[in-house]
């Protein structure tokens, strides 16, 4: 099993969610994060004091998937999030040892979906 972490533009969340639904990937966890990447934030000014503003709002998706769903998960995220501009984001994939569905205490591949 794999654990996919994707950092995307906030306004692309709806599109990515839709793509994932289309590919039958229903379960995911979403959170707010701040990205520091190539894309530069706007400088802010408060009473003349400038702030670099190098942290930009991003959305993070976390999805546990079985191996065979991995590629289509990645494809769905890319399809939903890609604009070709700097700031589109990244996808990180890690090995997932074990999954437990708390409700049923099932484990492994069957618990993931």
């Amino acid at each position, binding site marked *: 099993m794999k654990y996919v972490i994707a950092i995307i533009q906030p*306004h692309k969340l709806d599109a990515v969610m839709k793509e994932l639904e289309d590919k039958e990937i229903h379960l995911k966890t979403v959170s707010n994060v701040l990205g520091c990447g190539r894309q530069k934030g*706007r400088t802010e000014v*408060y009473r003349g004091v400038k702030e670099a*503003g190098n942290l930009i709002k991003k959305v993070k998706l976390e999805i546990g998937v079985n191996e065979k769903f991995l590629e289509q998960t990645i494809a769905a995220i890319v399809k939903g999030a890609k604009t070709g501009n700097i700031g589109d984001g990244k996808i990180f994939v890690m090995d997932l040892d074990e999954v437990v569905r708390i409700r049923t205490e099932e484990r492994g591949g069957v618990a993931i979906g």
Partner: protein
Amino acid sequence: MKKILVVLSVLGLMLGAGMLFAEEAIAPATTPVCAVPAAVPVSPINTGDTAWILISTALVMMMTAPGLAMFYGGLVRRKNVLSTMVQSFFLLALISVQWVLFGYSLAFGPDIGHFIGSLKWMGLQGVGMAPNPDYAATIPHSLFMIYQMMFAAITPALITGAFAERIKFSTFVVFSLLWATLVYDPICHWVWGSGGWLRNMGALDFAGGTVVHISSGVTALIFALMIGKRKGYPDNPAPPHNMVFTLLGAALLWFGWFGFNAGSALGANELAVSAFIATNTAAATAALGWMCLDWFFNGSPTVLGGASGAVAGLVAITPAAGFVTPMGAIMIGIIVALVCYTAVVVIKEKFGYDDSLDAFGVHGVGGTVGALATGLFATKLVNAAGNNGLFYGNAHQLGIQAIGVLATIGYAVVVSFVLLKILDKTMGLRVNEEEELMGLDVTQHKETAYTLID
């Protein structure tokens, strides 16, 4: 480039004031501005009336900011809250200066052709402390002036609900100054100015149904159509980012509206009391009405529905407040809840324009309901200086009200359209796509409302 032009023009506006001052300072004896008469035998000024209009003026000021600013600010997304709020705040400042320099003169100054005031009262020359009986016999003329200023400030602020989350700030500044001068000031003169043609015709508009709400509301519609929809509208709706702010704003609007409507009696008298009661009653009824409609159609009474209903009720009672009984106010509250609910929930969806915070749906539609309803429910029993409406045997009044409504809509639509066309070609109405995505706060004002890590 253009921004610098705007800055310069605003600075120019204030320098104009400087010159007026210089002029006045050189020859102070000839044009006493705001002079307190040394010893008046029996002052025509009533302190109770003056006290009430002073505080009413403060209340109407408070409606624009923080009232409207919070109401609108809560409805937009996090990234646009400051830009939305500061529009109201900025207009308060801008129109305060415009009004003192020339706005008041255009709106209430000596009549020119029943259409507009002359510039004779520019820089408030001749607007002193002696009451002007054409407007208010028991309070200083200057007090009437600043009371009216607050109406002139909130009116363009209402429009900002239509173009929220995508307007260029510089264009907004230029538009607002021109609109206030070319649309608000003339319409205000027609209806309330001594010699204005609608006033002469007997149109009833107690506190600004046409002048304030219809004029801003229909402009809002035109603006929404011309600036286009927000990116993602209507597929990815943007729910209000902070409903607490919106409810706080709605309650402050309700509170301030007592100054707006009961203050329009221009004294602490029976008429003020009557208008106060009508105002509260219509607001309450419409709030209940909207929540009932919500409950019926969506299965739950919503908080935003309650707030929207209250505001719609307040809008609709505005022209009628000094002319109707409490029962009339209840009827108006019920009607406006039904009509505005339909406008906001059904009609907007059908036509697909993006009147983002329903400036047209609430103020344009609600103002029209109110202006017409005044022609139905007005009664001389409440205000002998007013007139009877249809239900009190005077169908004629309804016709006059309709003329007032149509004239206001027609004029506001045409002038706003021309203004917007010109601004669209020159400055551009809208921020670019990236700026819209980043949000107006950071792109137009270099600020964000809330820190993320601190």
